[in-house]
């Protein structure tokens, strides 16, 4: 019941309770006074005897408003019953019918949804005859398409899930699947929506009665009271206050309650967020930077609230050098890349030092960051803006940072697309990302990095989302760019084979720390047990396929549960007592108390 604590759900609930109480006691307490004629006091405004005035029969408007609660709620309930009884089966129908009939029903629902609810209600009421019955049928019927569509959407989600597929394979018929699997799983959001519908029905009925198309005298509901008092609003505005407030309270109460609960139940359980920022104290004070390094990270720590996924990482990248970072997912390698680019998502904060070309990251002007630092992300399908031409996404780098004219920038863009080996680059520049294949898009992203004068290219899993053959070509392109432009590269990957083939040096990350740093050529002679295990578990052509592939037992600790000692100790065959209590500091590129022999 945690989600009841949202303010709108609480407000809705109190309004609904208030309404229900008055629906029960209203007619008992004020029913008689509400119909008592008083020919001497007709059409009066506010007085001490009649707080909200009287109507044309001298009847007290406050009493009439309170007594009308039951009628108004009751009619709304009837209308909602009609909506539910027709809408839910209609929406569930497509999942029981064959594909063609399903498409037809779905199309029918969709086209009806386009028609305004109130107008549907008015015309349905016209067919059923003006009056309470017509209004209830009209309002009830008009909400059917909306509820049917929601039911269908919800049912579709469940119907395509794995367990329903499993039930189908086991021979369950469509109807059985609907009753056993689909309906129980969509019941909760449906019930909440029906609650909200009750509110909309109440408002809709009030609207129809206000227009004179709903409840007819001598019966009265809130809408009818509004209809009768509305012409007097110019003289005694207080006479409309009663029914107007009552409609507002009841209608918005049900709608708020249903909507806010439905929203809360639809939201997937989200990760804790928005905890107060904790900025860690900077590590060991400003250090003299290696003057020639393109990138230098010193004691880089990334924290999100109380969680610290990257812990005191230090490394440097020399000009023209290709450095790889490997590790399992969750080891902090991607966050390290984002921190280097100054792109940590909120509420992440970085502490320690990141120096680009010898200057602290925050002191490098935007223009230089935009032209000297290039980033390539994992999913090329998502990395280009679908609404803009590829060429303009490249050209904007030049127009924004280099002061180039539009024409000049486009010429440069076409040139760079040619440099990443896209055929007919002028034509490609005018196309949209969806007309590109995955490999082409990743080339375009690399070309984007070449628009300036890149000194460092940070590539975060640049090939993970691509086909194997395309992977190879994109990696070769990165290596070639590195060779021809002299730009240094930081290549982040979970794939040790990829990194070792192209990078001179490899950093191995585990649970937010660098555990070993070594030349790629030395990987087979790695000394950290984790690196050894990684090497053993990554297959290459020489691997004997008849033997089972080595795996590392256990799993990497989550950032919040990293132990005091060596984080790898629980999974390590060589772990000593000391490994569990004292954390090994990296010395000569290795953080291990009991390394393997070289």
């Amino acid at each position, binding site marked *: 019941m945690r989600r009841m604590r949202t303010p709108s759900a609480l407000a809705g609930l109190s309004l609904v309770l208030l309404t229900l109480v008055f629906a029960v006691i209203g007619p008992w307490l004020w029913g008689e006074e509400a119909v008592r004629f008083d020919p001497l006091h007709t059409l009066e405004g506010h007085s001490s005897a009649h707080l909200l005035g009287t109507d044309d029969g001298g009847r007290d408007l406050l009493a009439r408003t309170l007594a009308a609660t039951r009628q108004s709620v009751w009619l709304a309930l009837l209308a909602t019953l009609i909506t539910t009884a027709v809408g839910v089966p209609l929406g569930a129908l497509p999942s029981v019918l064959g594909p063609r009939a399903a498409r037809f029903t779905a199309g029918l629902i969709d086209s009806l949804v386009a028609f*305004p609810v109130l107008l549907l209600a*008015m*015309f349905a009421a016209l067919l059923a005859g003006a009056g309470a019955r017509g209004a209830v049928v009209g309002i009830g019927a008009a909400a059917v398409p909306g509820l049917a569509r929601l039911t269908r959407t919800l049912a579709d989600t469940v119907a395509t899930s794995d367990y329903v597929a499993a039930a189908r394979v086991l021979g369950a018929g469509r109807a059985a699947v609907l009753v056993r699997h689909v309906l129980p799983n969509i019941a909760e959001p449906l019930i909440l929506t029906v609650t909200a519908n009750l509110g909309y029905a109440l408002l809709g009925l009030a609207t129809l009665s206000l227009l004179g198309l709903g409840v007819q005298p001598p019966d009265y509901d809130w809408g009818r009271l509004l209809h009768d008092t509305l012409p007097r609003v110019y003289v005694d505005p207080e006479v409309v206050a009663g029914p107007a407030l009552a409609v*507002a309270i009841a*209608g918005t109460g049900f709608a708020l309650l249903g909507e806010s609960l439905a929203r809360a139940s639809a939201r997937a359980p989200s990760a804790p967020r928005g905890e107060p920022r904790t900025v860690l104290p900077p590590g060991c004070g400003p250090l003299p930077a290696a003057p020639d390094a393109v990138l230098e990270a010193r004691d880089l720590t990334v924290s999100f609230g109380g969680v610290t996924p990257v812990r005191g990482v230090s490394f440097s990248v020399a000009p023209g050098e290709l450095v790889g970072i490997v590790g399992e997912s969750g080891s902090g390698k991607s966050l390290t890349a984002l921190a280097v680019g100054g792109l940590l998502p909120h*509420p992440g904060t970085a502490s320690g030092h990141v120096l680009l070309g010898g200057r602290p990251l925050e002191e490098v002007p935007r223009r230089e960051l*935009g032209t000297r630092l290039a980033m390539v992300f994992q999913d090329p399908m*998502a990395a280009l803006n679908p609404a803009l031409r590829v060429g303009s996404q490249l050209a904007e780098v030049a127009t*924004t940072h280099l002061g180039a004219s539009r024409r000049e920038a486009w010429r440069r863009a076409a040139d760079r697309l040619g440099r990443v080996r896209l055929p007919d680059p002028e034509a490609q520049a005018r196309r949209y990302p969806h007309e590109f294949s995955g490999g082409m898009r990743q080339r375009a992203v690399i070309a984007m990095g070449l628009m300036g004068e890149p000194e460092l290219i940070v590539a975060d899993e640049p090939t993970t989302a691509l086909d194997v053959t395309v992977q190879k070509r994109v990696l070769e392109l990165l290596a070639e760019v590195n060779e021809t432009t002299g730009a240094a590269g930081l290549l982040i990957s979970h794939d040790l084979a990829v990194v070792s083939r192209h990078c001179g040096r490899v950093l191995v990350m585990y649970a937010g720390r660098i555990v070993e740093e070594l030349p790629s050529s030395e990987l087979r002679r790695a000394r950290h047990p984790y690196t050894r295990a990684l090497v053993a578990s990554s297959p290459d052509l020489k691997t004997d396929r008849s033997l089972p592939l080595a795996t590392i037992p256990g799993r990497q600790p989550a950032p919040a549960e990293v132990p005091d000692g060596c984080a790898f100790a629980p999974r390590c065959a060589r772990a000593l007592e000391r490994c569990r209590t004292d954390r090994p500091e990296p010395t000569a590129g290795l953080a291990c108390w009991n390394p393997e022999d070289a």
Partner: protein
Amino acid sequence: MFLLRRAFRFVLSLVLVVLASFAMLHLIPGDPVRAALGPTAPREAVEQRRAELGLDRPWPEQLRTYLEKAATGDFGESFLSRQPAGQVIGDRFPATLQLVVVTMVLALLVAVPLGMAMAARTHGGRGRRSELAFTSVTGGLSVIPEFLLAVAMIALFGVVLRWLPVAGKDGAASFVMPVLALAAGPTALLARLVRMETLRELSSDYVRLARAKRLPAVRLYLVHLLPNALTATLTTGGLLLTSLLGGSVVVEYVFQWPGLGGTTVEAIAGKDYALAQAAVAVYGAVSLTVVFLVDVALGLLDPRSRPRMLG
């Protein structure tokens, strides 16, 4: 090609609406002429009226005449006033159209920048108080019906403060209250949608890459985010614009706006079926036109739904 396909669907739906308006008269239980003239009307008068309206002929023939006449804008004459229904609608419709168009434009002009600004302010879990204020206000506004806002505004600005005219259509000041009453709900819902869609786009890779390029905020939001957020918003929120039409009937009634809404209400209450039929056709056509325009706008905004470029 894209436009042609949409246009074809649009015309097809229009025909369906006209058919539905024809069928309406025949779905009414009992005799519509008897219902219109009242139980005391003499039998001969009812028979005569039926013959005049052609209701005594077989229905395929009636349908043909109806369609032929509808194509020329002739919807027969009002049962009550005996004025041509087409003329009544021609007189009243422009005021409704003005009201609805002004409201739609206002709703979009307010909701899109507001939603995007709130997204920029609240993404990644920052600005929790702004978020709460925004969701509470828009949540409240989106469920309060037009007529309550209208009545409250009349009482406050019209009667107590006497700032604005309380009824009728007479100059710019008379637009203020009807437009605000009609726009509040859809604007609140649209702004919520825009914020949600912008938040979704903000966490996408292309925005991260645009940030990596260190683009200025204006370019990031207007050039990169706006088309995508707007596409997503209109896809799910386009129907909000048609829902304005229903609200316009109530707002017109409360403000005695000289539009089609009041006429429709009278026609339904007075069982003036010819006029009601025409109103169904007109409102249906307007809804479909709005849906069509939203579709076209989506096509222009989203290159993926356009045909492949050559070359």
